[in-house]
């Protein structure tokens, strides 16, 4: 599962996901991409599930690029515990995703195979996604 190797602080504030993606919003490495149309926290297990889903369709051909990384730690308190006595323990790590963020990219396969693989990946995501192509460089 994806997780940072080292962090400055273990626990974080929850924060708010505002605005749209101003970076990481175009296909940069592969030929085809999966773009998020909504904002969400995508946890490390969902990212891994998406990678496995596309790898199964590709069957060893092509290459999958994961464009998001779970930098954010999310804590929670156990059930039936009184409030107070400090922040809870880390439950999972997640990536903060805004509309426009490219989640996955694929290269080295025909467009129909890439479309099928990224559609399978999209089903593992907690957001609405769309298939996008690499934009021609000016």
């Amino acid at each position, binding site marked *: 599962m994806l997780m940072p190797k080292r*962090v400055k602080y273990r626990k974080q504030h929850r924060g708010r996901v505002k605005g749209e993606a101003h970076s990481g919003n175009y296909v940069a490495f592969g030929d085809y991409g999966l773009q998020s149309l909504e904002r969400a926290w995508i946890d490390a297990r969902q990212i891994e599930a998406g990678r496995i889903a596309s790898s199964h369709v590709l069957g060893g051909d092509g290459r999958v690029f994961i464009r998001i990384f779970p930098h954010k730690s999310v804590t929670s308190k156990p059930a039936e515990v009184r409030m107070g006595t400090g922040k809870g323990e880390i439950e999972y790590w997640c990536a903060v995703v805004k509309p426009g963020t490219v989640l996955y990219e694929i290269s080295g396969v025909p467009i129909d195979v890439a479309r099928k693989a990224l559609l399978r990946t999209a089903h593992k995501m907690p957001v609405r996604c769309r298939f996008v192509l690499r*934009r021609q460089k*000016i």
Partner: protein
Amino acid sequence: MEVVMLPVEFREATGSQECKRMRNAGRIPAVIYGLKREARAISLESHAFDMVMRKGARMFEFSVGGKTQMCLLKDIGYNSLGDKIVHLDFMRVDDKLPVTVNVSVEFSNPPLPLTGALLEFINRDIHISCLPRELPGVLQCNIADLKVGHHIEAKDIVLPAGVTLADPPHKTLVSYHYKNAEVEATPVDGAPTEPIVLTEKKPVEAPGTPEKGKDKK
């Protein structure tokens, strides 16, 4: 490449709100600069620009203020979702001076796929230098004879007459090689399951220090 003529208008009102109003009215805000002359803010019709962009146009001729000016499309600004054009940059070019531009390379006839081999497109465009009117739309490259373990460099692309390569000749465009075995993300015994916290205070216990309250009688 064909030089496309498009009607444009100078715009005096600038700023984000004015540009937003312009986009809602079906026009794209743009700017023209270059040839050591003052930059001018212009606007052009969105639909007309979309139609010529579909044909891959890069060279434009604008007639504004009774003068015609040849311009090269330098940059396109998109919105966050990447589906709408929000701004355009045009650079004035002289008909007799060469320009350096990025041109995409179209790779045709890919070799038959081999198990475990990956055809990797590292660069899909190259920089070329030529006169504005001789600018090619797209460069063709046949990769049918590419074998595993070999690659294609920028110098291997056949350029039309009057066009020179502006990139390093050994810039790799396509590589056909065997894939490295993917490392499975299974947890290894003894591997840390939590990240290292840089600001965490570690409890330090010196071996010879007496414990608190022990010496008290």
